[in-house]
């Protein structure tokens, strides 16, 4: 584990007790994301899914904890590792799988693909395959919400690799100048693709938003309750006109940069991977909390897992059997 990453679970206990239903909802969402990503891996390895697949297994608590604190009409933008964000913001499994397979029933009629799923009906303005590329869009959505006086907030999800992109600093500056209702959620999974982030990042990550006077929070991103509680406070701030915030979530991606990134020992050890999988797993962390409270039994959680598995299997089945777009679609939607 990186020495720079602060993981002090005991000092960051939830400030508020969530109701059981909400814990179970977040549990369900995380389990759905993991099952979805595992299915993506399977589809990809069986050559059923074309293109690239960047899995978010290990990072589920960030997507779920953040989106749980948002309203349905709040905005998010996402990145290449965005399946979890889309699901957590209300995306449906069948339309996502259909998009991943390039089918007409997909969220973008098969024209976007894994790295470009957008679902504006749930406030998802789209995943983005340019690192840091959606920072402008998210900030613009927050600007628009402020000017239209809609009380919406925007969340920009990005990895720590985006801290190398200048656009992020340009828009953070404007967000703070104009007190825009946006939360920049930085998922630090420790690696810029195949490079440890420390080799690419001078100084402390959080000093960068602090330079603009932006309110900064840092959380252990493997505990969904912490992510949720912290985001909720930042959302309240933003909704009440108190301006942008930067939320650093320390997390880990279990798989490689993409599905094809199998041999990873040259940039991170198997011991490190094992430690995160066994000691910092977001689903396991929440499971332990739920069981400790005592109101929920293990079999209830197993039921949720079985339901998620079933939903994923039937969603994938739907997508596999769905038709490709008609060839006449190729030049449709270039212009409005």
């Amino acid at each position: 584990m990186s020495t720079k990453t602060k993981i002090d679970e005991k000092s960051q206990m939830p400030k508020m007790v969530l109701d059981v239903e909400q814990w179970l909802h977040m549990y369900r969402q995380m389990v759905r994301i993991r099952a979805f990503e595992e299915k993506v891996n399977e589809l990809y390895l069986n050559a059923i899914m074309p293109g690239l697949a960047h899995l978010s297994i290990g990072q589920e608590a960030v997507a779920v904890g953040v989106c749980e604190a948002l309203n349905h009409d709040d905005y998010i933008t996402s990145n290449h590792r965005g399946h979890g964000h889309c699901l957590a913001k209300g995306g449906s499994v069948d339309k996502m799988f259909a998009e991943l397979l390039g089918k007409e029933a997909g969220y973008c009629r098969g024209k976007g693909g894994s790295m470009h799923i957008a679902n504006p009906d749930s406030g998802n303005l789209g995943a983005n395959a340019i690192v840091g590329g959606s920072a402008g869009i998210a900030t613009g959505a927050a600007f628009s919400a402020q000017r239209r006086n809609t009380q919406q907030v925007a969340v920009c999800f990005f990895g720590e690799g985006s801290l190398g992109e200048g656009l992020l600093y340009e828009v953070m500056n404007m967000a703070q100048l104009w007190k825009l209702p946006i939360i920049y959620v930085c998922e630090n999974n420790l690696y810029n693709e195949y490079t440890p982030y420390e080799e690419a990042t001078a100084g402390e990550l959080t000093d960068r938003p602090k330079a603009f006077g932006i309110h900064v929070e840092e959380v252990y991103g493997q505990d969904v309750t912490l992510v949720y509680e912290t985001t909720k406070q930042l959302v309240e701030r933003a909704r009440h006109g108190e301006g942008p915030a930067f939320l650093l979530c320390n997390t880990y991606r279990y798989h490689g940069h993409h599905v094809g990134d199998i041999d990873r020992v040259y940039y991170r050890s198997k011991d490190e991977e094992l430690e995160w999988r066994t000691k910092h797993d977001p689903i396991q962390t929440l499971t332990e909390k739920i069981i400790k409270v005592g109101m929920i039994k293990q079999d209830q959680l197993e039921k949720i897992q079985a339901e998620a598995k079933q939903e994923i299997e039937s969603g994938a089945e739907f997508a596999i059997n769905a038709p490709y777009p008609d060839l006449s679609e190729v030049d449709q939607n270039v212009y409005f």
Partner: protein
Amino acid sequence: MSTSDKNVREITFAEAVREALAEEMRRDPTVFIIGEDVAEAGTPFKVLSGLVQEFGKNRVINTPISEAGFTGLAVGAAMTGMRPVVDIMFGDFLTLVMDQLVNQAAKVHYMSGGKLKVPMVMRTTMGATRRSGAQHSQSLHVWPSHIPGLKVALPSTPYDAKGLMKTAIRDDNPVVIVEDKMMFKMKGEVPTEEYTIPFGVADIKRPGRDITIVATSSMVQVALGAAKILEEDGISAEVIDPRTTFPLDKTTLIESAKKTSRAIVVDEGYERYGVTAELASVIADGAFYYLDAPVKRMGAMDVPVPFSPVLEDLTVPTEQSVAKMARYLCGKE
């Protein structure tokens, strides 16, 4: 249209742009202007002077010097119900916004399967001979013209500047409007009543019989000047302004070339791989069996725009050079 018409007055190109913006901002509260020094300063060219007084700083928004940042912000605002007009002071700064323009604005509608749209206008400038050096003098309008998802308008008169701007603001797609900064003070007739100019409709700026000169933006005035010179030589030149490089009115270009049998394409972008190449190809393809001479291209010289006035003046087509090329094609040189 003539000045005898009491509903027409003479105003400058800059005033025409400003009128278009003001009218659209009055009509639609979601329209706003964003860019560097657009408010009190009214841009270095003073095109926007007075707008902040009428619409306030919430709708005429000064930004930090962050072209990519405020362009990206405008894309997001456009995706969520607003109609931004982004001001990029010099066309040379398109280099700084290309990801947000090309990878984001142009592709959002397609990548989302038609669910999202980006009704954004980007105003920027082009044009050499202002002694501004290599980084403030380029005409890079071919870059957005190359990208599916973008529309590009190149007004050449105050009348066109106003009508095209109003159409751009009402368009649900990202539109790049490139204005020649040397034309802001040029006067022309503009009606007082409201009008718009549809995209993809070329304008015959001067009818003629012997040769077609297709010209864009500042080069329209150069072509009209050349046509006057040619008239003295007994050559009747037809000057056609496509007004938008995309959508492109191929039919008008081709029909004119079929009629005259000769064509020159003049544009201030670099000649190499430029707008002239595309337009010449359209004519060569569509009017091949009617042509008596090869279609000639005239663009900016393929060098970084030099500072020294004597050198800079060599880099762009002039009335004389266009007239000379026309005489050559007509067998009179």
